[in-house]
């Protein structure tokens, strides 16, 4: 009797100790989650606070007269005239009409610097779209120069950054502001243009298209190859030293630094097979090499998780091994395989280093339209902009990061959604 009372006391004593240990462990977990979440929060707050400005750009309202004498053309259908035309004169004339008191070479140059150097070409596009405007005058919002953009945004926020502007330019901006002729507008250039040396004209469409083309090729190559390899290794290959050797090496490949895949791609695809450099084909090939191990490993795990009883049932019915795999194993393993593929693709989307090796770091203004057009990709674009000296590229960089993160979030969310959607319970 006394012994059982004794035991009870011991159990009670150990119980408090165990409960305390459990409570402590819960707190460790909470703290770990908190640290992780705050890191993410800091990242997002920092990037959004720096990058949100890039989604707006400064525009100046001017009366533009599309006078054919100013441009120096007499026929809008003549392409040689169009190329030779002095389109910049349109915006310069409009500025001088607005500020007639400005005289002197350097003052005039400062005045012209209010507008983006691409303003003339925007006006040309406008005229080509509406030829009836020739020799007419219209009031139009014209893109401002990046230094003006930086100054005006910071001035609106109450912390004016005027280091790159002259007193006179600041005066003109004040004047325009008082007349409501300068304002922030949605920056459509960001989403419709390729890269540019001029920050106000730079957009990420080129990089987005480059990423999409590269990833489409990566998916088309890596998913079938990875899944076939996983099915063969898991279901058909004899278990011997060779398959062990292959398994070890697949795991090794998954841990190889990605820049080495870039060097491999440079040596094999570009130097040996003479695939053109800087194009989505070579990017897709290199990223395929890089994410194949991930896809093979996750696909094998998905195949392994299919209960053996289903295999036995199929074989017992007289299904061939191929039918067993095709009819039963593959449908059950597919959600896991797709999740793995999407995680691999997300990894590929964020990859920079190997692409630097195969020339996708080139400065490319044109938006790539096919697998053989020179292209760059989102993370490389971020790298390029972060590397640029112009202050206006700071917010562009953050904006590009936001676009990249958006794509990553969409991909990872769809991975979770697909898994939930396709998962079958048995």
């Amino acid at each position, binding site marked *: 009797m006394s012994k059982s009372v004794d035991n009870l006391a011991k159990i009670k004593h150990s119980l408090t100790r165990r409960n305390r240990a459990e409570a402590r462990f819960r707190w460790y977990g909470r703290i770990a989650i908190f640290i992780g979440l705050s890191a993410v929060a800091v990242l997002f707050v920092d990037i959004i606070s720096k990058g949100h400005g890039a989604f707006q750009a400064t525009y100046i309202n001017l009366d533009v007269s599309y006078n054919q004498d100013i441009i120096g053309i007499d026929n809008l259908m003549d392409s040689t005239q169009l190329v030779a035309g002095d389109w910049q004169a349109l915006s310069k004339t409009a500025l001088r009409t607005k500020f007639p008191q400005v005289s002197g070479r350097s003052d005039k140059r400062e005045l012209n610097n209010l507008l983006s150097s691409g303003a003339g070409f925007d006006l040309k596009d406008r005229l080509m779209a509406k030829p009836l405007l020739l020799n007419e005058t219209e009031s139009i919002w014209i893109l401002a120069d990046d230094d003006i953009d930086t100054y005006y945004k910071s001035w609106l926020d109450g912390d004016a950054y005027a280091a790159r502007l002259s007193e006179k330019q600041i005066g003109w901006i004040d004047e325009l502001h008082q007349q409501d002729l300068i304002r922030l507008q949605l920056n459509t250039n960001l989403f419709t243009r390729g890269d540019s040396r001029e920050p106000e004209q730079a957009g990420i469409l080129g990089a987005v298209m480059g990423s999409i083309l590269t990833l489409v090729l990566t998916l088309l190559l890596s998913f079938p190859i990875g899944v076939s390899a996983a099915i063969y290794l898991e279901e058909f290959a004899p278990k011997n030293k060779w398959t062990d050797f292959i398994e070890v090496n697949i795991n090794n490949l998954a841990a190889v630094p990605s820049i080495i895949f870039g060097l491999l791609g440079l040596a094999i695809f570009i130097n040996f097979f003479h695939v053109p450099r800087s194009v989505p084909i070579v990017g897709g090939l290199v990223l395929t090499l890089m994410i194949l191990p991930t896809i093979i490993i996750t696909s094998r795990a998905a195949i392994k998780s299919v209960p053996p*009883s289903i295999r*036995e049932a*199929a074989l*017992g019915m*007289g299904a061939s091994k191929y039918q067993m795999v095709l009819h039963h194993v593959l449908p059950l393993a597919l959600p896991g395989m797709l999740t793995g593929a999407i995680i691999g693709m997300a990894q590929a989307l964020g990859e920079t280093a190997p692409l630097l090796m195969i020339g996708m770091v080139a400065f490319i203004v044109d938006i790539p339209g096919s697998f053989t057009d020179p292209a760059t990709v989102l993370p490389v674009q971020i790298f390029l902009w972060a590397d640029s000296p112009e202050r206006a590229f700071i917010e562009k960089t953050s904006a590009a990061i936001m676009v990249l993160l958006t794509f990553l979030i969409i991909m990872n969310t769809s991975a979770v959604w697909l898994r939930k959607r396709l998962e*079958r319970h*048995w």
Partner: protein
Amino acid sequence: MSPANTDKPSMLKKAAAAKGMPMQNLEVDDHQVTVGQSFSDNAKMTMRNINVFYGDNQAIHDVSIDIAKNQVIAMIGPSGCGKSTFLRTLNRMNDTVEGCRVEGDIRMDGENLYAPKLDVVELRARVGMVFQKPNPFPKSIYDNVAYGAKIHGLADTRVDLDEIVENSLRKASLWKEVKERLHQPGTGLSGGQQQRLCIARAIAVSPEVILMDEPCSALDPIATARIEELIKELSENFTIAIVTHSMQQAARVSHRTAYFHLGKLIEVNPTEQVFTMPQHRLTEAYITGRFG
């Protein structure tokens, strides 16, 4: 004898001693000859001198037995005695096990099942199997039953397939319960219904022999009773070999009973005789519950 098997009998002896039972020699002679009536004049399948190895480990020692046509033969014996392994040699399911090797002569209607040119796919269409744990495919009830007919190309039209599905479900006495929900998942049925679905799936391809590996071990007594009923009905048209842990079940459903012990076939006799007048001391020890 491989060394892995040597300590098992001594464990059994200890167990018997612990229960306060008279010490008895439970070891098997190396030159054990199966007692009783191993052979049949009306054999569907004949097995001669079967040895099965898993790597270096021998699981079945020199077993010879006939399985008679349109009869139920029950395999009983303590866990690990090799009865499931033996059953799986009959449709070559052991082929799928890494390192498993089968020696001996197994014939169905005189045809050698281990002949190099024999296709296991055809064999498994002729020798169906029902597993211990109900394992319907995660597909609809209809697709489960229709699967075998589809892969073997047994039905030319949709109507034929419907007929095969209905007949198989009727034979498995499941039709009434599921006819309203043929296109719902088979995994949504109760355990007993799932096992009858698996039986329906197996008989849908009209096999000649059905192997059952402890088909009721995961089921409650009522579901078990229904399956046993079904086995009796099926034995009119099919040859059935069933492995069971339940001696009552063997007694209820089978015509002949084979007792396995440590990979050896000890005794084969008509079921009634095995349970009333076992010929071998080991059979007697097992059925009287002295070990197992």
